[in-house]
């Protein structure tokens, strides 16, 4: 971060009372922005929105936390899709900073993990900015009415054998069964998203 952007960030943090850019109940921003999917198609959040809800996860390839959680992301995403929840995983990182986050590497990762949902490139990082997504893997779950009902971690531990709280899975289960999401906001340590420079 250069001094200028540091000052801007510091100023915004002084003003912001919440760590979360989107508030519970908010609608998803940037829903019509087309993003390149690993299959070559152009996909927006609106395109994938499900009748039962929509799950948006900001992720990437290089991040060790993503690597720790990626099997669980694939399992939850694939299962959610079968329950009528639209799923999209968005990579907003600048691959100039992380070559492992390049499009071809994304294609390989999606295939390796068996994603049945889009894994797309946020080519300007503006979708992440609009969500105020700051790190990966960061999940946003919207209900059937498009309102944010869960924001945060996949679960409570990077280490699969130490998970005791399945935040995202529980939220998906609640949304698809018409119940209240039990834990609505969680925090986790993740890789900071390396936004592309503003054009």
């Amino acid at each position, binding site marked *: 971060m250069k001094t200028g952007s540091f000052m801007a*960030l510091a100023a915004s*943090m002084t003003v912001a009372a919440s*760590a979360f850019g989107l508030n519970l109940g908010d609608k998803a921003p940037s829903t019509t922005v087309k993003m390149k999917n690993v299959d070559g198609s152009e996909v927006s959040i609106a395109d994938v929105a499900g009748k039962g809800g929509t799950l948006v996860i900001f992720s990437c390839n290089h991040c060790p936390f993503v690597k720790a959680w990626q099997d669980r992301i694939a399992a939850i995403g694939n299962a959610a899709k079968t329950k009528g929840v639209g799923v999209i995983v968005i990579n907003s990182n600048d691959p100039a900073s992380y070559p492992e986050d390049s499009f071809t590497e994304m294609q390989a990762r999606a295939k390796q993990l068996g994603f049945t949902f889009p894994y797309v490139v946020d080519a300007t990082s503006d979708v992440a900015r609009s969500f105020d997504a*700051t*790190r990966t893997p960061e999940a946003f779950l919207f209900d059937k009415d498009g309102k944010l009902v869960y924001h945060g971690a996949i679960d409570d*531990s990077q280490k699969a054998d130490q998970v005791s709280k399945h935040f995202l899975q529980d939220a998906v289960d609640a949304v698809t069964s018409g119940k209240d999401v039990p834990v609505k906001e969680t*925090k986790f*340590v993740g890789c*900071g998203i*390396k936004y592309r420079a503003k054009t």
Partner: protein
Amino acid sequence: MVGILWCVGVLFVSCGRTSHVRVEDVHVTPVTAADVQRLVREPGARAVLVNMWATWCAPCREEFPGLVRVARKYQGQGLKVILVSADDDKDMAQIKKFLADEGVDFPAYIKAEKDQPFIDGLDQRWTGALPATFLYDGNGKLRDFWEGEAAFNVFEQKVVEVLGKQSKPTGGNS
């Protein structure tokens, strides 16, 4: 001739760092957020900078030399720097090597608590993104916080501001 080249090499490497630190001399202690808060409030410091980082985090690595430089420059004036790694503890060898390479000859730490309580225990505003920096005054009051990398001059400006607002130097212990 070989000896001369070796000496030149050693000199060159030494000049590129603030000090030479051996991996076996690097100490990394597991901490919870409560431990960090206790460390922040230990007497002796006039400013305490807590930095959350990880070996695999590119912006963390980029800002690290500036962090170490500000630690060295101001530790004699009451600055204490607490470096807390968010790496997996199985990567301890890698953590120690990185710290040694960066010339960290003061105690370092590794997060040993689940994310939510650790984040909330430091500051509610922290989203969990790395790197993250917390700057406290000598009374343990959080004076500044930011996510994302910063350059040496930013660290210095912030630290000097906190140091300058306290009239009674009590000495640093970094």
